[in-house]
C-alpha cells in the first residue's frame, strides 16, 4: 500500500515536473513550423530518458550512493572534472533559461519587462531552496505543475486527426526548411534528455533512502511518469500545430506562443498558459539549481542534503546560492529568453556524450550495481543513446549557425 502511494506520488511528480522552458518552447516551435512532423523526436527523446532515469534510480537504490558520487569514485577525478565542466556550464545556462521563463510569464501577466523580474525571481527560488526541504520542493512544485495538463486538455478538445498525429511519430525527411527542421530536432532532444534530471533523480533517491525494495517503484515511475510527461510535450506540439501553424505564426519569442491555448480554452487560455509557463519553469529552476549543488558537493565529498539546514551543509548551500546569484545575468543583459532557451537546449545536446557516456560503465560495474547490473536490452539502449548523443554533439553547433 505504501509502495503504491509512492508510485502514484512519483508518477504525479514526474508528470507535473516534466514540462519546462525548453520542452515547452521547442515543442511550440516544432508544431508552429512543421505540424505533427517532429513528434517522433519527442518520442525518441522520452524513450531514451525513461531508460536513463530508470538506470540512475537503480544505481542509487542499489549502491545507496548518488550518481555524482559513484562517478567520482569509479571513474576518478580527471574524468569527473570533465563531466562537471560539461554538465555544469550547461546547467548554468538552463538555470538562466528557466528563470527567464518565469520572468517572461510575469511580463505577460503584468506588462513589466522580464529584465526587471529576473532578480526577484532568482531571489524567490533561492528562498524556497534556503527554507524548503527536498519533499516540499519535489512534490509541492510538481503538484502545482499539474496545471500544464491544460495543454493535454486543449489538444484533445482540438480533435486532431489521430492518424495524422500517429504518423508524426514516424521520422520523415522534411519537405522544406531542412536546416531548421534538424535544428529543432537537436533542440527537442536536448530539452527532453536533460542530464541534470539524472543527478536530481538519483540524489532524490538517496535523500529518500531508497534500497533494493524500491526498484519496482523506480521502474514504474520512470516508465509511466516519463511517458505521460512526454505526452504533455506532444500535446504542446499538437496545440501549436493546430492553432499557430494555420495562422502563420512563427515562434521567435515567448509572446508568439502566449495565445496558443486561447482559441480552445477561451478566456481561461491566456491565464492557463502564463501559469503553466511560470510554474513549470519555477519547478525546473529549483531542480537545476539543486542538481548543480548535488553534482559539485557529491563529487568533492562535501556534506549535502536539501533536508539539512544550510549551516550544516555550508558549501552545498553556497553552490546553489552562487548559481542563483549569477543566473540572472544573461537576462539582465537583455538576452531574449527564447533565444537563450534555444542556445541552452542546443548546448545540452553537445554535453550529452559526457553526461550519458559514463552511465554505460557505471551500470555494468558489479561493485556499484551488484546483481542489478544492466541487462542486454538496457545496454543496447544506452549504447544507441550514446551514439545518438555523439551525433547530436557534432551537428548541434553547425545547425545553430545555419538553422537557428
Amino acid at each position, binding site marked *: 500500500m505504501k509502495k503504491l502511494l509512492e508510485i502514484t506520488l512519483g508518477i504525479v511528480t514526474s508528470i507535473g515536473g516534466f514540462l519546462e522552458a525548453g520542452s515547452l518552447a521547442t515543442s511550440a516551435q516544432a508544431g508552429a513550423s512543421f505540424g505533427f512532423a517532429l513528434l517522433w523526436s519527442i518520442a525518441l527523446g522520452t524513450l531514451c530518458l525513461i531508460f536513463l532515469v530508470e538506470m540512475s534510480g537503480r544505481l542509487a537504490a542499489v*549502491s*545507496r*550512493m548518488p550518481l555524482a*558520487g559513484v562517478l*567520482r*569514485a569509479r571513474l*576518478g*577525478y*580527471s574524468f*569527473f*572534472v570533465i563531466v562537471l565542466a560539461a554538465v555544469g556550464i550547461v546547467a548554468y545556462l538552463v538555470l538562466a533559461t528557466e528563470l527567464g521563463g518565469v520572468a517572461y510569464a510575469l511580463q505577460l501577466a503584468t506588462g513589466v519587462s522580464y529584465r526587471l523580474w529576473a532578480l526577484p525571481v532568482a531571489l524567490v527560488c533561492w528562498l524556497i531552496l*534556503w*527554507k524548503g526541504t527536498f519533499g516540499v520542493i519535489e512534490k509541492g512544485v510538481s503538484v502545482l505543475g499539474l496545471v500544464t495538463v491544460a495543454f493535454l486538455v486543449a489538444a484533445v478538445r482540438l480533435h486532431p486527426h489521430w492518424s495524422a498525429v500517429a504518423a508524426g511519430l514516424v521520422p520523415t525527411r522534411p519537405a522544406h526548411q531542412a536546416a531548421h527542421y534538424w535544428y529543432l530536432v537537436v533542440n527537442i532532444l536536448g530539452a527532453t534528455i536533460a542530464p541534470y534530471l539524472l543527478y536530481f533523480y538519483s540524489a532524490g533517491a538517496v535523500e529518500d533512502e531508497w534500497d533494493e525494495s524500491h526498484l519496482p517503484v523506480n521502474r514504474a515511475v520512470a516508465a509511466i511518469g516519463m511517458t505521460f510527461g512526454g505526452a504533455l510535450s506532444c500535446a504542446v506540439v499538437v496545440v501549436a500545430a493546430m492553432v499557430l501553424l494555420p495562422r502563420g505564426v512563427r515562434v521567435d519569442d515567448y509572446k508568439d506562443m502566449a495565445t496558443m491555448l486561447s482559441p480552445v480554452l477561451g478566456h481561461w487560455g491566456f491565464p492557463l498558459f502564463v501559469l503553466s509557463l511560470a510554474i513549470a519553469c519555477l519547478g525546473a529552476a529549483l531542480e537545476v539549481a539543486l542538481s548543480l549543488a548535488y553534482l559539485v558537493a557529491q563529487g*568533492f*565529498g*562535501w*556534506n549535502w542534503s536539501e533536508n539539512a*539546514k*544550510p*549551516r550544516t551543509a*555550508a*558549501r552545498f*548551500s*553556497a553552490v546553489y546560492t552562487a548559481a542563483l546569484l549569477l543566473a540572472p545575468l544573461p537576462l539582465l543583459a537583455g538576452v531574449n529568453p527564447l533565444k537563450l532557451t534555444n542556445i541552452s537546449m542546443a548546448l545540452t545536446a553537445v554535453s550529452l556524450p559526457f553526461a550519458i557516456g559514463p552511465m554505460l560503465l557505471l551500470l555494468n560495474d558489479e*561493485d556499484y550495481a551488484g546483481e542489478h547490473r544492466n541487462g542486454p536490452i538496457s545496454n543496447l539502449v544506452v549504447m544507441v543513446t550514446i551514439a545518438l548523443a555523439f551525433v547530436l554533439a557534432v551537428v548541434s553547433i553547425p545547425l545553430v549557425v545555419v538553422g537557428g
Partner: protein
Amino acid sequence: MELARDVLDKLLVDGEHRPLGRVDGLVLSWAADEPPRVIAIELGAATLAQRLPRWLGRMIDALARRFSPRHGEPYRLDWERVRRLGRREIEIDIDGPRSGALDTERWLRDHVIARIPGA
C-alpha cells in the same frame, strides 16, 4: 587491495558517518629495498590541482594559495587513522567537525552562510 580502484577518490567519513571529503591523493614512501608503503591520505584543492593538466592545475593551486582558509596547504591524514575500508566509504578515526579536513566548510559557514538569516 588496489589503491586506484579501492582507495583513491573514495568518500571519507569520520566515526559518526560525517563526510570529510574524498581521497584526493595518497602519500607513499619508498624505503631502500622495501615495497612502497602508503603512509597518508591527502585532501584539498592543491592535491587535486596536481591531477589536472598543468596549466589548469597551476591556476587552481594559485587560487587556493590566495583564497582558501588553509592557504593551499593539503590536509594529511595518517594511514594509521583508517579504521575501515568500506565498499562505499572509508572510515577515519577522527572527530570530523574539529579536524582540518573541514576547514573550508567551517570558514564558509562562519563567515558567510551562518550570517544569512534563516541558516
